[in-house]
């Protein structure tokens, strides 16, 4: 009888172990290399995951830390990871001073933009025009919009539907290289292109 009770207790413990965690969180390595962390808060208790493959199982008794690894993550999250969209790709085209013409080098970058668009089943493209600080706000706002529109037109000429492209002009508000007012700076005369 005693033995039976013992077996029942062991069986119950095994079952509980097999039932496994209801919720799991695992921090993945960060290819960008910046600081990365996830905080897991349950009521007043908090666990911080800050190392690659640090995991937390969340049960009724709070979060319990555990080390995970690449194989475990692949086994449990394979389909979710396989469905991850391509990360947005960013490009910068530079312009001739005071004009809406790209520099020759930038014409080659357009090829890379199209290669990136071709990789995606559905791409949306955001084109943001900027100027240097020569001229007043109104003129620069207009020029930055014009630069973005020139890029849209160049893309349309290569077969990218205009309704897939959003254009924005930011004038001289967001300089790539900070300068005083009235400074001709080639690195600020640019259009940023985001392919998502």
């Amino acid at each position, binding site marked *: 009888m005693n033995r039976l009770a013992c077996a029942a207790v062991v069986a119950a413990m095994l079952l509980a172990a097999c039932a496994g965690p*209801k*919720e799991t*969180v695992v921090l993945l*390595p960060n290819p960008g290399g910046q600081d*990365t962390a*996830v905080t897991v808060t349950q009521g007043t208790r908090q666990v911080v995951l800050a190392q690659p493959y640090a995991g937390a199982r969340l049960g009724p008794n709070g*979060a319990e830390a555990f080390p995970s690894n690449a194989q475990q*993550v692949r086994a449990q999250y394979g389909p*979710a990871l396989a469905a*991850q969209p391509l990360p947005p790709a960013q490009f910068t085209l530079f312009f001739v001073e005071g004009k809406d013409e790209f520099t020759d080098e930038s014409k080659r970058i357009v090829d890379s933009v199209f290669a990136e668009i071709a990789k995606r089943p559905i791409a949306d493209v955001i084109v943001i025009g900027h100027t240097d600080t020569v001229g007043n706000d109104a003129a620069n706002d207009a020029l930055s919009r014009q630069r973005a529109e020139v890029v849209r037109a160049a893309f349309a000429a290569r077969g990218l539907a205009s309704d897939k492209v959003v254009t924005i002009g930011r004038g001289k508000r967001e300089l790539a290289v900070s300068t005083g007012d009235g400074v001709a700076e080639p690195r600020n005369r640019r259009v940023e292109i985001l392919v998502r």
Partner: protein
Amino acid sequence: MTWICSRRRGRALLVAMAGLWLFDAAQADVGQIKVATGQVSVERKGQSLPGRVGLVLESEDVLRTGADGAVGITMRDNSLLSAGPNSILTLEHFEFDPTTSDGRFDARLRRGTLAVVSGRIAKKSPQAMTVRTPSAVLGVRGTEFVVSVDE
């Protein structure tokens, strides 16, 4: 005098609340489905839409995947969320200012598996993005993680 003050304060609060409501209602384009395999649907205001590649998402949308389903979305702040089979993912709240990167993103995983790459909102402010599970709140200080909820 106290009465006038409090009434004024009440009115200011009402105006502020109306403003918040309008701001929320304006968040019509928060992201897009970029990847969809198997059975995927999006529940919006009581209706169920097929979760096809290209569908533009709104705040409060609920994404569901079937036993063979998976879905990947890109949010306007460049966050990437992807869910595996038998998942229910809600985009509870999303607001984003593309100029300043200020905003707020709260998602909820009720069931299934989810992979997350955080975007500009979490990069700008580590308190501004959360993923909730039935029992916990995950604060996203940056980049990539996975989370699962078994029923």
